[in-house]
């Protein structure tokens, strides 16, 4: 079944009936007969400002010197054409499709179940460090090109199997028109990644991007832990990440302030230089934008660690920073029984119920093999009989 017809550069295309993804503001539709692009349609008439913004964006090609590697997707899902209705009215825009399963929202790296499902055999700490590097690089590059991401979160950046990242919601990027100087502000933000001044209604700036980047890098390096998680000891009732950000209450800097959930990974898995940056961002940097480490600082510190990553000899997918003398993930397994990077499959140790299950599975596999063999033999006999 198909849905609406829209015009891209005057050329009609038919959209799928159901969107891939719909938010409060817009919905993203596949295009019938073209798996390479998607069309984002605004729910409300987007207005002249938005139309002018997208017209300007079509004339720009940011990060054009990149990518250098053919296996690397573009870092920005930049608009490729305006989408118009039959009367020429502006409805949205087309962009390259960066969809699942090849491109996964960053948040998919923040839970073990999704890591194992979507990045099997590769999402170890080294991989997460590489994604953090790519994210810092992307941010630094955009800032260099005078673009402010504005709405920067774990949901609007996707990552591929090589750890390369692509920013999706380019229509909310804040920039100055290179010709007229007109400012196109970013009107969106995601609370859990918003610095206090942004929560209070302030504009998107490089410093607000740097805050979001710090949170995302920290989440990557701790396999998904938010630096403003935890419930303050003295809090009255409801408490959220947003509240902790506003109150500058991060366990990375002041662990004594909050009840820390028992699954939380200790900040010390971050190599010292990166931990120092995190403490600057989540301590003084919360209320003083100038004190936040810029993207280049993250990039330099991440770069140093990439070649130093250690590999654990005892368990698969256990890699860690060079500042540690033993594997923190093995220590965690020993203390809690929870392996951050490997599924809850029992390690083969003599254990009655586990053994039984294994025997059961093995017997089942064996029976299946025998059954298959019989089927093959029967088919061969049938073929042989017919051949005569």
């Amino acid at each position, binding site marked *: 079944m198909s*849905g*609406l017809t829209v015009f891209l550069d005057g050329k009609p295309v038919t*959209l799928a*009936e*159901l*969107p891939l993804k*719909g*938010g*409060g*503001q817009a*919905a993203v*539709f596949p295009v019938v007969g073209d798996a390479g692009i998607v069309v984002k*349609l605004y*729910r*409300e*008439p987007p207005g002249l400002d938005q139309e002018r913004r997208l017209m300007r964006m079509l004339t720009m090609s940011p990060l054009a010197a990149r990518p250098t590697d053919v296996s690397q997707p573009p870092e920005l899902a930049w608009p490729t054409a305006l989408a118009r209705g039959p009367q020429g009215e502006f*409805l949205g825009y087309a962009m390259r499709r960066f969809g*699942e399963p090849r491109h*996964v*929202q960053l*948040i*998919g790296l*923040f*839970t*073990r*179940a*999704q890591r194992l499902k*979507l990045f099997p055999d590769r999402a170890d700490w080294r991989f997460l460090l590489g994604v953090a590097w790519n994210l810092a690089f992307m941010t630094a590059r955009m800032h260099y090109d005078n673009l402010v991401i504005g709405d920067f*979160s*774990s*949901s609007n950046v996707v990552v591929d199997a090589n750890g390369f990242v692509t920013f999706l919601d380019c229509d909310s990027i804040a920039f100055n028109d290179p010709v007229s100087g007109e400012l196109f502000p970013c009107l969106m*933000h*995601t*609370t*859990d990644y*918003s610095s206090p001044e942004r929560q209070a209604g302030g504009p998107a700036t490089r410093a607000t991007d740097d805050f979001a980047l710090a949170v995302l890098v920290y989440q990557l390096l701790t*396999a*998904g*832990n*938010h630096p403003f*998680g*935890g*419930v303050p000891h003295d809090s009255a009732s*409801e*408490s*959220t*990440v*947003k509240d*902790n950000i506003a109150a500058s209450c991060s366990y990375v800097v002041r662990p004594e302030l*909050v*009840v*820390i*959930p*028992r*699954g*939380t*990974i200790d900040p010390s898995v971050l190599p010292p230089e990166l931990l120092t940056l995190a403490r600057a961002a989540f301590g003084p940097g919360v209320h003083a934008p100038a004190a936040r480490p810029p993207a280049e600082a993250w990039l330099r510190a991440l770069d140093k660690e990439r070649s130093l990553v250690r590999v654990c000899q005892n368990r698969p997918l256990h890699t860690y920073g060079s500042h540690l003398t033993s594997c923190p993930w093995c220590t965690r397994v020993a203390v*809690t029984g*929870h392996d951050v990077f490997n599924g809850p499959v029992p390690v083969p140790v003599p254990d009655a119920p586990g053994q039984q299950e294994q025997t059961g599975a093995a017997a089942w596999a064996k029976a299946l093999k025998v059954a298959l063999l019989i089927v093959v033999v029967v088919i061969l006999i049938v073929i042989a009989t017919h051949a005569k």
Partner: protein
Amino acid sequence: MHSEYPPTLPAEYADIEFENNAQRLPLVLCLDTSSSMAGQPIQTLNNALMEWTRELHDDVSLSYSVEVAVVTFGGQGVAAWRGPQLLAPRAPVSPFVPAHTFRPPQLAAAGVTLMTEALELSMHIVAARKAELRASGLQYYRPQICLVTDGLPTDGTGHLTDSWHRLIPVLAEEQRARRFRLYAIGVGGITDMGEQVLQAFAPKFNARLQGFPFRELLQMMSASANAEQKGAGDEVFEKIFSQFKTQRPAWES
């Protein structure tokens, strides 16, 4: 820390996923399984739950923080489900299951419509879950409760009752204090009177829908959960709901 609601279980056994410190989003489906839902409607509901579960598992964003509990009213009374498992009354087990491990119950329709009691149970498990999460140091977004019915509140003998009146001030206060967001949805052959009850429960988020569009309903719950995760303002929830209510495709406006 003290709460007027005792946790359903001591925090160390409260099935708090040993995963990460993600802010949680408790979601309660409070479903009418009384006799009027028998036949096609309950089958449609079961199918919709199966399909929604698949979508939930595949949604990397929602599976990060959503946890689901099911409450039903029908048969002999009111029941809480932990995924597919029916919980005994006052069982010391939380009915909330992380989205990525949630499996839906297989529901059957029979009996009376203890809607008042079902909403009370829903409020209770939400409050208890909040207490558990807080005690474990886990933050939460505003929980969502979704009431779905095709009838009118009855008592245990199946007679219409005014007991739901006692809920009105409680629900008003809870929603004013933003303790949860209640959606009250009438389906099938719900009467004008039934609709008035839902309007009283959830003045902003009530609807009377043609047929049994459970798929769309559950998708709307997902869309709202997504907006909640993003920190959207009230107007976004109202927009999502009004789009659902008029049953228009997203691009039609």
